[in-house]
């Protein structure tokens, strides 16, 4: 079962990379998010 979980996890990571999720997070999510830290 744990092996299956690892395979699913790796599949998710590859799928996320294929869908350019890290780039989306990097481009849009990574900034000083003032509301995230309770300012503004």
């Amino acid at each position, binding site marked *: *079962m*744990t092996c299956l*979980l*690892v395979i*699913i*996890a*790796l*599949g*998710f*990571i*590859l*799928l*996320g*990379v294929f*869908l350019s*999720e*890290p*780039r*989306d*997070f*990097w481009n*849009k*999510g*990574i*900034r*000083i*998010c*003032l*509301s*995230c*830290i*309770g*300012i*503004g």
Partner: protein
Amino acid sequence: MRRFVQIIWIFLINGHIFPFKNKIYIGPLKSICAPGLNCYSCPLATLGCPIGGLQHFMSQLRAHLHYGIFMFGFYIWGSLMLIGAFVGRMACGWACPFGLLQEMIYKLPTPKYRLPKALDYVKYVVLVLFVLILPAIWIDKSGYGRPWFCRFICPAGTLEAGLPLLGMMPNLRVQVGWLFYNKLFILVVFLTLPAFFKRPFCHILCPLGAFYGLFNKISFLRIYVDQKACHKCDLCYKHCPMGIRIYEDPNQLECIRCLTCREVCPYQAISLGFGNRRTQIVKDKFHTADVETYR
């Protein structure tokens, strides 16, 4: 050994020290999930926070679906599942800066108490409600939600990002309002409670610990207790940073796999295994008198 690893992880996750500039690090490393709770808005942070990342994708889920974009934060789910599948909640015990801070505060010479068991379940509500559901369903006119956990709760974000950024950028201070004071209050509470309780934030509020804990019973890394060798002397309980009795359930949800119990057990009843392999329990001779002094 664990302290050393915890400090190494702090520097690995927060490696943006040189050159120290008045802005946060923006680069490809930020798309990689840190194993512990570490705010991505921290001026020192080099990796992203997985809980912040999950909220990022959940908050734009409906807008993305509207435009036919299918991003559910797969790589963050995958990263968390991968860590969980291999080591369970071990990242909390070895790689979380906020966990280390709470352990340091607990060393203060104050009266010590135990948290009610019922509070352990609050963090699952926080995970489901504040990290997954509210960011996805509570959207503004533009169709985007907000990171509810980061915005209203996360004391790590206030400590690692809010306060340093206010110190570094005086122009931000005019924007401080009730939201910040609310978070500051939560931070003060969770910097005070660890003086009296063991890792209260991990017990009560941490959504990352809640997620990792779900994998404790099925992860490759397992803890075994030889019930025949265990004398239930509670020395492990006394030293456990989470205040649990490991012999009751070696892979319980609250265990952060810090292995302190294994170090202090005079009977060497606690062992570690990976997959189906299990480390040999070496039964050394011990002196009962020594054990008595530990009680």
